[in-house]
């Protein structure tokens, strides 16, 4: 298992390098100018000087090299400095965002909490709702519950969040005035009341996002349960006189969870990637919103870094999913 993991990590290094180059070149080719949001009243020559100050004039290979160095060397050093109070990275040039002129990583770190709160929570909620639905739908296949579950998950697939999001805002914020329509990212939870406030502002985005997660995971769960319910060992368990609860919730579930857990693990990078549209609709300024504003503002270092972090997460969680598979399924032995 260890060799397997090491080997996969070794393979992922060249993969990530290729990905980083692809992302870098792609974005370099992309249109857009960080100066486009500067008012027209600012003369062109001033804009040109501002561009030069951002380092846009340098050739692409040089910038790619610099960026790689910054991403893989300077930023980790900064992280170490941050954790241990050392000063390894003092004086090193960090990756600076063009829009804010501040280190990209700091902004990412700042955005992470709200993204994790909302998108992460919705994922957790979605999964927690999805599993029982999937299990029961499979167990009572073609029952009314199953049909309803199928319908709800289809709705989850079919209704885009910019539709459902605005709809719940109109219903719950404007008509009923139950929840705020604007998410307050500065809100600090330090008491029961503030926790309630936090809950209230999270409910709608979490609801909208969880619907999609629930839809997907419950379908997976159902399919996986169905596959396993037909297996011979289920009959064995019944033949041993085990109760249905034990048969379904211990024997079948344990087996069905193996593929589902890996699917869940593969969905995790999505949390860190944020949910662009939902964040926009509910004004949860998380990573997704950061990415879209960076794209709109042609903030290349930000977009490059964010997409690359995302790529690293995807590759990493792919690996994790494989390892989890091996851990959960005793039949799988890597090496």
């Amino acid at each position: 298992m260890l060799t397997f993991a090491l080997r996969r990590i070794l393979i992922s290094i060249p993969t990530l390098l290729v990905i980083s180059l692809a992302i870098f070149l792609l974005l370099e080719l992309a249109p857009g100018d960080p100066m486009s949001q500067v008012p027209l009243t600012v003369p062109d020559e001033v804009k040109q000087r501002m561009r030069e100050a951002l380092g846009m004039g340098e050739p692409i290979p040089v910038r790619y090299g610099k960026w790689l160095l910054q991403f893989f060397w300077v930023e980790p050093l900064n992280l170490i400095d941050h954790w241990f109070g050392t000063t390894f990275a003092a004086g090193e040039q960090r990756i600076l965002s063009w829009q804010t002129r501040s280190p990209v990583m700091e902004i990412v770190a700042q955005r992470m909490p709200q993204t994790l709160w909302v998108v992460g929570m919705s994922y957790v909620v979605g999964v927690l709702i999805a599993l029982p639905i999937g299990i029961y739908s499979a167990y009572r296949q073609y029952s009314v519950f199953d049909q309803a579950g199928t319908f709800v998950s289809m709705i989850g697939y079919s209704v885009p969040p910019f539709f459902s999001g605005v709809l719940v805002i109109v219903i719950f914020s404007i008509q009923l005035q139950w929840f705020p329509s604007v998410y307050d990212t500065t809100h600090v939870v330090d008491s029961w009341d503030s926790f309630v406030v936090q809950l209230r502002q999270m409910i709608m985005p979490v609801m909208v996002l969880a619907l999609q997660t629930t839809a997907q995971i419950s379908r997976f769960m159902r399919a996986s349960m169905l596959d396993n319910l037909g297996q011979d060992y289920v009959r064995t368990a019944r033949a041993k006189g085990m109760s249905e609860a034990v048969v379904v919730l211990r024997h079948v579930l344990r087996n069905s969870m193996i593929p589902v857990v890996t699917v869940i693990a593969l969905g995790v990078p999505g949390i860190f990637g944020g949910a662009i549209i939902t964040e926009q609709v509910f004004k949860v300024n998380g990573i997704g919103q950061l990415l879209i504003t960076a794209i709109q503002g042609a903030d290349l270092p930000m977009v490059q870094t964010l997409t690359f972090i995302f790529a690293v997460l995807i590759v990493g969680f792919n690996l994790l999913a494989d390892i989890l598979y091996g851990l959960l399924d005793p039949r799988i032995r890597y090496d």
Partner: protein
Amino acid sequence: MTDRPDHTDDVPVAGNEATPVPFNPVGAAQSQRLIEAPRSQLRDVWDQFKTHKGALFGAGFFVFILLAVLLGPLLWPLEPTFIDIRARNSGPSLTHPFGTDQLGRDILARMIAGGRTSLAVGLTAMALALFLGTLIGVLSGYFRRLDGILMRLTDLFLALPLLPLLLVMMLLFRDSLRAAIGPETGIFLLVVLGIGVTSWMPTARIVRGDVLALKEREFVLAARSIGTPARRMITRHILPNVLSPVMVSATLGIANAIITESALSFLGLGFPSDYPTWGSLLRDGTDYLQSYPERVIFPGAAISLTVLAVNYMGDGLRDALDPRIRGR
């Protein structure tokens, strides 16, 4: 995801061996008959598909929507871009069954035009994604040597963000495409390419898995023992047998492409905003949600119902194409 109803394949015909399939044994009737016409598998698929009510509804609705957007302009000849400023913001009426928008454009006509775009995007992007996914899946599953590199390529694409990619493509090809085939077709191609190029990966993975499994099946070995070369092996034995996962991906792909196109429209990255698609109608409508809810509800319902219908179709197709079920 494979769902299957257990009421047929779980029939424990005693012994649990591979169950021999009932077939009228050497009966008296067979000798006189001439060669039977081929019993189309499509028919079997359809017979099974029919039993799935959701799928039947889905297929019916999808056909209805397709006919509506294709034949709609004949029945409802109003121009979707015609501005009748005096009639703006009117509710549903006989002259404008779905009402008009803030410029007095007929919403029904815009829905029909928008649907044509959205469905065209959905179908073509799906076709492209399927083509790429199947090609890459088959190649990497069938040829061991290509496997590593193609799967890394898949990883790479999974890690690429759609939005910047679309922007790049807009820049690089828009002008030449616009000059060659006109602005709307150009963007259409770009959106389709963008969605297609960024959504083939799941199909590729599924197909690869299936091909790997198929390669171990004895009929492939049988073909090898006959001396069938790789090209025909793929076209004759591999492709027809990965058809069912591909068909299922197809339905999911249409739904996915419709949603993606509307999300792009929502973010203002899709078609020009005077060019109606369901997504852009929905986006424009959300601002008017309170005063004119129908402007959100029509396109929203159109997107959702179409995707729903297609998803149900996929569900039914999955069942219908599963030989474990259809076999009997």
